[in-house]
């Protein structure tokens, strides 16, 4: 098994990513995007700086224009950007879609898109959910084959970065019943194609999501990713990688809340002493610390598997997502409570962490979803 402790290169990367986020992408950037009602929902110039640092190509192999730093590189970036909540297309374009293309795309698809992703020239979004609850086998969107390729009809919801993506990866059904795993296929769809209707959502975390309708959208035959009807085998792997990546973002979120809470406990005085001297708060802080240690291990272990043996990815993904969802819920609540009244104000940042927490907890399955999946994977 690969190490759960960062090596020298990884530590250097972590320091540089952290420094960049601190200086160029602090929480105030999310506040700016929200208050200015930024049309893109993120800063394109900031994204280009991140691209220049190699973040978009972190997991993409060198032959496709990336840096081949492995998923651990992306883990570091997701954790650090999770600490400052900076909105970027990292999750949609790199974590979800570059992974999907890398795992399932044809050589031509990889050659045409992966270098552009690494160079920050294209944004992608994964359109898979069809209901308010994560359910990867619930696919009603229809793909019907015709002489020119396929026609897509259906609706997708909560597509991350759906309104800014140049290309969409759409999960559609070409055969089978609603919850069958067979008969699901993945298609590349131009967001500007006729029949694609994008409706941007205004979400509690001030980040990007959209509902997207497909009305007789015609795609060419070579838009198919992988084999016809066999898309679920790709999707399953993509979702597990993405869950592990989201767990890294959640770890950054939770760690940042925790660090801010500890700082506040040391500074804030009541009854003439720092409130951190009260045992009622000390023990809650100690519990949070303990849970965070377990979270960090769950995330590290999962990434070491992604860059290593890969055999236990599904179960490790569910461990990481379930554990982080549970702990982040608690820590984000404590983040508000332990700051007292100021924690309830919009002027103070802690609310941003809480808002993002609930969104990322729900994405790709909440704690209950993953406990259920964990039980099934373990034969009970």
């Amino acid at each position: 098994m690969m190490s759960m402790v960062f090596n020298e290169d990884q530590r250097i990367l972590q320091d540089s990513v952290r420094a960049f986020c601190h200086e160029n992408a602090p929480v105030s950037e999310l506040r700016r995007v929200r208050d200015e009602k930024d049309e893109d929902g993120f800063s394109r110039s900031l994204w280009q700086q991140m691209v220049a640092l190699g973040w978009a190509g972190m997991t993409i192999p060198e032959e496709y224009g990336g840096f081949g730093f492995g998923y651990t590189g992306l883990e570091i970036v997701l954790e650090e950007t999770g600490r400052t909540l900076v909105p970027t297309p990292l999750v949609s374009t790199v974590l979800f879609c570059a992974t999907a293309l890398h795992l399932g795309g044809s050589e031509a698809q990889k050659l045409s898109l992966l270098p552009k992703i690494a160079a920050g020239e294209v944004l992608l979004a994964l359109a898979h959910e069809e209901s308010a609850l994560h359910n990867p086998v619930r696919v009603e969107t229809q793909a019907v084959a015709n002489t020119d390729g396929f026609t897509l009809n259906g609706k997708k919801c909560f597509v991350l970065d759906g309104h800014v993506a140049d290309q969409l990866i759409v999960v559609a059904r070409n055969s089978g019943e609603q919850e069958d795993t067979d008969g699901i296929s993945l298609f590349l769809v131009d967001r500007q194609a006729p029949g694609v209707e994008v409706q941007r959502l205004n979400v509690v975390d001030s980040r990007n999501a959209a509902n997207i309708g497909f009305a007789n959208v015609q795609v060419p035959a070579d838009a198919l990713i992988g084999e016809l009807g066999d898309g679920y085998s790709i999707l399953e792997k993509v979702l597990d990688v993405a869950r592990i990546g989201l767990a890294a973002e959640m770890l950054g979120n939770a760690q940042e809340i925790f660090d801010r809470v500890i700082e506040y406990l040391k500074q804030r005085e009541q009854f003439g002493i720092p409130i951190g001297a009260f045992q009622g708060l000390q023990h809650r802080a100690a519990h949070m610390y303990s849970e965070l240690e377990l979270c960090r291990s769950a995330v590290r272990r999962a990434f070491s598997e992604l860059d290593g043996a890969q055999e236990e990815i599904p179960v490790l993904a569910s461990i990481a997502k379930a554990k982080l969802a549970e702990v982040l819920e608690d820590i984000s609540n404590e983040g508000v409570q332990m700051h007292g009244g100021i924690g309830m104000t919009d002027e103070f940042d802690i609310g941003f962490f809480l808002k993002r927490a609930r969104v990322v907890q729900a994405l790709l399955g909440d704690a209950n979803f993953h406990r259920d999946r964990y039980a099934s994977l373990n034969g009970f």
Partner: protein
Amino acid sequence: MQTLAAFRQSTRAWLEENCPASMRTAMEEDEVVWGGRQAEFKNPDSKLWLERMAAKGWTTPTWPKEYGGGGLSKEENIVLLQELQRINARQALNSFGISMLGPVLLEYGTAEQKAEHIPKIVRGEIRWCQGYSEPGSGSDLASLSTKAVLDGDDYVLNGAKVWTSYADKADWIFCLVRTDFEAAKHSGISFILFDMQSPGVTTRPIQLISGASPFCETFFEDVRVPAKQLVGKLNDGWTIAKRLLQHERTMISGFGLSTSNAGRKPDSASLEGVAMRIRGDSNKLSDAVLRNEIARHKIDSEAFAFTSQRSMEEAKQSKGPNATSSMLKNYGCELNKRRYELLLKGLGTQGLGWSSSDYSDFSALELKTTREWLRSKGNSIEGGTAEIQLNVIAKRVLGLPDMPTLIKKGG
């Protein structure tokens, strides 16, 4: 020095030749080898296995060779552990001498003390017990009042200890005593070793809620202990006491590690296996709420095991146990307690028997589970209560401030 690969090869060959077949099976609680003058070996192979391992120093693989230890590096020790695990070898010797006293004696003892005591720990000749808690000093351990007064070349001890594990079976005790009655409470304590056969020592077992009696009350009445058996500096025993507690916590945290599920299939003794058997379920646990709770527990157990592993990796870069031992101890104990509560929920009334009747309504495993459930309640009390561990984390790891008044008086 031979390479790790060569070491692995020679270790594997030695184990193949020297580990008796009956020592490669799961061990019942009454088969654990504790050593000591009154050592009992239910299986004669246990004695043979102990002697062979002790001769190599592998009962304490990383301790120095000059005191009978194995003298292995951390890396070699890992190889040894892996090879032992590979053949499912039993632990040859389990003792508080190994897990608690030895490490601090190596750190703080004189050459003479080490030469006298360490080899006997390695060979399992002397069984040690721990004289820490007192009737009036539990969590506030530093308020202890067992007195040691110098009289010529001896200290004369008077007082009582409680929760002394296996005091009735132990040969020697490592004991915290008050040697300065004027100083602040942490500054007047010394760490001393003596023979439990010394005149004036008596023990009385305490029956627990589980029915078992692993602990004793221990009384000292004018017990004479040679002054040279004091470890470290006079009145500096608290430093050693705390160090030893870290080792103890590291040991106890292992309780949370017993639930791995390598094959990812429920076996009959697992939480889910038990619950499914009682409910007659074949491939999915029918109680959805219990299933969720069990999954949550198992996820926590796995994340905890990863954390222990990560902590070991990180410890390689530093030295000895650190403050995270409090976190691991506390979490491990809570996990173990939760596990038994879930086992009880899984078993229903089958988990509530006390002994078997003529009708044998309860299986041996079920009865054992009930007793272990009760015993597990002590996990978060012994070795420092959960509350004390949380205090340690808050202060030493998180750097949160002390409460300035009230309880600070008296040191």
